């Protein structure tokens, strides 16, 4: 199966801190697909469902986040993740 890809600019003021990372991994875990996250189009790739790995990227504000996903719901997963990051990690609260 083909890997789908997407990227999005993260404008969140503090970058990938605990709160945004928790939201991102929670969302990723809701999908069956394998989802990777990277800070460049060629990786290195880490598991987007792992808070330990996602926090370890220490991605600052204005980083571009790259995703690649593989699986039955890969397209929906990428759309949801891009929407989350693009929407500044708001969850409708």
């Amino acid at each position: 199966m083909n890997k789908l890809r997407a990227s999005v600019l993260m404008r969140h003021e503090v970058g990938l801190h605990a709160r945004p990372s928790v939201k991102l991994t929670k969302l990723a875990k809701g999908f069956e697909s394998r989802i990777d996250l990277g800070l460049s189009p060629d990786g290195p790739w880490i598991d987007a469902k792992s808070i330990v790995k996602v926090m370890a990227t220490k991605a600052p504000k204005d980083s571009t986040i790259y995703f690649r996903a593989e699986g039955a719901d890969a397209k929906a997963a990428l759309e949801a993740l891009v929407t989350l990051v693009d929407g500044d990690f708001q969850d409708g609260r």
Partner: protein
Amino acid sequence: MDDRTHRAAHRIQGRSAAPGIALGPLVRLAPVEHGVRQYRSAAEGRQALLDALAASQEDLSALAHQAGDDEAEAILAFQIALLEDDSLIAPALARIDVGDGANQAWSAAIDPEIASYDAAEDPYFRARASDLRDLRDRVLRHLAGETDQTVPAGVILAADDMPPSIFLATDWRDGGLVLRRGSPSSHVAILARSRGVPMIVGVDVDHLEHGADALLDADAGLLVVHPDANMRASFDQRRAEQSKTREIAHEFTGPARTAAGELVRVMINVTGLAELSTLDPADVDGIGLMRTEFLFQGREKLPTEEEQYRIYRRMLEWAAGKPVTIRTLDAGGDKPIAGLTRPGDMNPFLGLRGVRLSLRHPDVFRAQLRALARAAVVGNLKVMIPMVTVPEELDCCRALFEQACDELHREGKQAQMPPLGMMVEVPAAALTIEDFNADFFSIGSNDLAQYVAAASRDEPQLADLARPSRALFSLIRNVVDHANSSGREASLCGDLAGDPEQGAALLDQGLRIFSVTPGALGPVKAAIARYAGSAA
């Protein structure tokens, strides 16, 4: 000689951080040291770890449920997410399979993560190391079969230090707190005062005997281990007096009036939303001081405009039309904030603090002013600026505030300029109060008292000098007189306002708006009701 069979009373002097008295067994919150359990098989070890992880998750979910504030919830959610992360759990389980003990395996998996956060350059990430440590220790406690360090009510808790989240999760009924670290102005002390929990700091907690009976006299900053019969009797008597005062205080839940029938407004000082959950807005005349430092402290990441706005809005909604006075960030002095205040300032109380600091950090200040301008649309908001010394500082804040409003309007957002007042806590401002273009005045008596006497309120040997003096009262009178003659409001929000014994003296100066910690509402209203008019 330490002779426990005699159980002689042992007095330990600390510093008072929150008044009150408590009697009960000492419970030492020790740094964790865990016994190593042996498991017969890897399968048993695996199961033990999985059980401990599940139990920890339950603890954290319960804590998050009662936390009541955004920041605490976020930190707990982070810990919960870690517990669900296979990249942390799988290596631990793999180690158990090759013969490691469960606790050894768990530590081996999480310790490198802790080390990497400890080594981080960014202070925000460095601070996360303590979250991971907290999580590691919680799981280790479960593995060792120790119950969570939840403390029964009615004990005197002794610890090195205590994060606010633990304080908020503890049932303090009839209990007290003894810490080695912290100061009377630490945020745990502020919480303790507002919830009526007796607390002292500066005590060497290592040598305290776990389980020993102890009497905490936080009014005097004193801990007595193995109090004798006389001390217990005098405790019982003081306790009876206190509950009588409380009963009387309970009768004063409505508006406060002096014996002559004059209305006096009594508002509350708060640090965040959590304190409001147990309070009925009907019992108060508004929030006289909301300290926003609390939103900034202990988190190493400054709160965003949006986050601040949400909190301010919820306070205004709680107050339902009554005034809510929010003080802009009062960092510096004894309230350091990572990334904002300078460590190692020679004389922090006379240094870069309050408005002096805000004006030097325009980005941080701008975010707060924008959040406040947006919140002003929602309710009866008033904003005050701390540590104003000369009129230009307030003028500058007003200009920045107006700029923030304009910006928001241009962005199509709703915003308005709330009444802008000043804290009067620097003698220079109190003496020339008529020069300031303030919409209202709020006297910060804690700092005003120590500045006018040049005596630190945290120096026990100078307690006599730091006491309310004629000099202090004459500054208060000057501010109140000017406010009255110019048709503006003056309130007082320092500890002085919450001291029922000072009520008459403050009313004598013409003060008619008090702002006190929620715990002092009843006693202060009772003192006001006793006031028949100026003694002079």
